[in-house]
């Protein structure tokens, strides 16, 4: 199914007049991974190179290079951090915190969400609380989390859990509530019991909403682990940022910032790969006749 779109958006064949030097990488990539993807891959690389160039020009000629270190200086700062393994240790710590909080938060969010979405009394009972608590971002909860759990791992797990829970919960409730009535009634007259309708029809129908909620929660987890580590940790990428800031090591700050970008991107790609592989059949939203 995914291929259909690619073949439609395929790049037009190389037109006469285009210099062979420009056309050949296109042709090479098209042969290897298909025309549409090859073109967008090249454009992505062009975009990144262009951004790097602008960054270099700005930091060299416009701004104080101490405030915005040029790309090469950041690169040189990264080498010892990579060689010593320091950056990987921080990445591992932060990623573990995100995963533990994200997975537990998603689990509780999904279980509570399907129940609250389905059982009217529970929904009416808990909805006011959810509607109020959802405005307490993980950042707002840092001070109290430190008092409750100290600066150990538990406070970070809790904060990520907190942020994930409400996003996944609210999306799951919405997904369960939006299962088409016709689909539930169709199952009912085919002979499904109430429990079967819930398990075999309502929950699968909610999967696209749950997955969307989890993706948003994943991104927000990477955002909220950083302030948690800045304010209440002695390890992780956030702590690296904090420490480098105190020592006025701007290149190291930039290394940490880029690491966050790359890490978030990679984890999201892994998540999407997993969804495509395992949950693809559940991901079509209600088809329009």
């Amino acid at each position, binding site marked *: 199914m995914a291929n259909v779109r690619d073949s439609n958006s395929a790049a037009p064949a190389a037109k006469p007049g285009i210099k062979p030097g420009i056309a050949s990488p296109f042709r090479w990539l098209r042969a290897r991974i298909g025309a549409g993807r090859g073109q967008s891959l090249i454009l992505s690389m062009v975009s990144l190179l262009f951004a790097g160039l602008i960054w270099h020009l700005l930091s060299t000629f416009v701004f104080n290079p101490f405030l915005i270190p040029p790309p090469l200086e950041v690169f040189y700062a990264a080498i010892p951090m990579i060689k010593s393994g320091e950056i990987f240790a921080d990445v591992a710590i932060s990623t573990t915190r995100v995963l533990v909080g994200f997975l537990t938060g998603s689990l509780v969010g999904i279980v509570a969400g399907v129940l609250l979405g389905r059982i009217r009394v529970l929904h009416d009972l808990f909805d006011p609380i959810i509607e109020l608590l959802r405005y307490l971002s993980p950042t707002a909860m840092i001070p109290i989390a430190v008092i409750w759990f100290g600066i150990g791992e538990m406070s970070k797990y809790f904060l990520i859990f907190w942020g994930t829970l409400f996003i996944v919960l609210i999306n799951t409730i919405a997904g369960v509530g939006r299962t088409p009535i016709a689909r539930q009634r*169709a199952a009912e*007259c085919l002979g499904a019991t109430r429990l079967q309708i819930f398990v075999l029809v309502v929950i699968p129908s909610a999967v696209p909403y749950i997955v969307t909620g989890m993706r948003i929660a994943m991104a927000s987890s990477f955002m909220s682990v950083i302030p948690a580590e800045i304010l209440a940790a002695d390890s992780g990428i956030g702590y690296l940022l904090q420490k480098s800031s105190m020592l006025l090591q701007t290149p190291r700050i930039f290394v940490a910032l880029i690491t966050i970008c790359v890490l978030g991107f990679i984890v999201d790609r892994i998540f999407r790969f997993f969804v495509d592989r395992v949950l693809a059949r559940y991901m*079509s939203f209600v088809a329009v006749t």
Partner: protein
Amino acid sequence: MLRVTDVRKVFGTAHDTYIALDNVSLDIADGEFLCLLGPSGCGKSTLLNILAGFEPPTSGSVTADGAPVTGAGRDRVMCFQDAGSALFPWLTVEENVRFGLRVRKIPKAGWDSIIDKYLRMVDLDRHRRKFPAQLSGGMRQRLQIARMLAVEPQVLLMDEPFAALDALTRRHMHAVLLEIWQRTGKTIVFVTHDIAEAISLADRIGMMSVGPRSVITKMIDVDMPRPRDLTNPRVAQLFNEIEALLAPDLARAE
């Protein structure tokens, strides 16, 4: 036989009520093809939902073969207008049909031959592994029909099933449905707002008035051989009669 006696349906609260159906009575014989015809908002879908057991009547009674209808029953299955929502999009064509066999605890040994039989009947046996999103509108509606036939109900309740299809596909679906009806002898209650559709399908047409307080205004026997061609003078005359009957209601509905 389905028997509807003095059914009233009132929606809303004590202060803000809407009387959808007002004392509707109707007998539907076994093996009959009955069309309920009326403009939008005449309560025909409400009546169908009551027949299916999805909604209880406010007063009056509905019985199927003498037993009161209190919920969705194994003998009555509904076909919905929007097949996209009614089908299970995460199941393939054959898995959609299998769903009903599974929840009805039909012995596994028989599944394959049942699925095969009904997918062939609606001409979808070459598309078993496809998902509903990969089917055209007409194919989805055929899948919905196969899925409901597979659990072998006595009554098919159809809620404007072909309203969203283009005219050519709709005519094809009429032929498919009539053939299935003639082969299986099911009772069909078919809701539509399309006069031509009602005439080409039904044994009897129940005309319904626009709400509030919808009633069945007239029962028309369509005593003509199928297929019924609209250029046939008798068919055309019936079409005009029905259109004239609906005209005042249409004006009121606007």
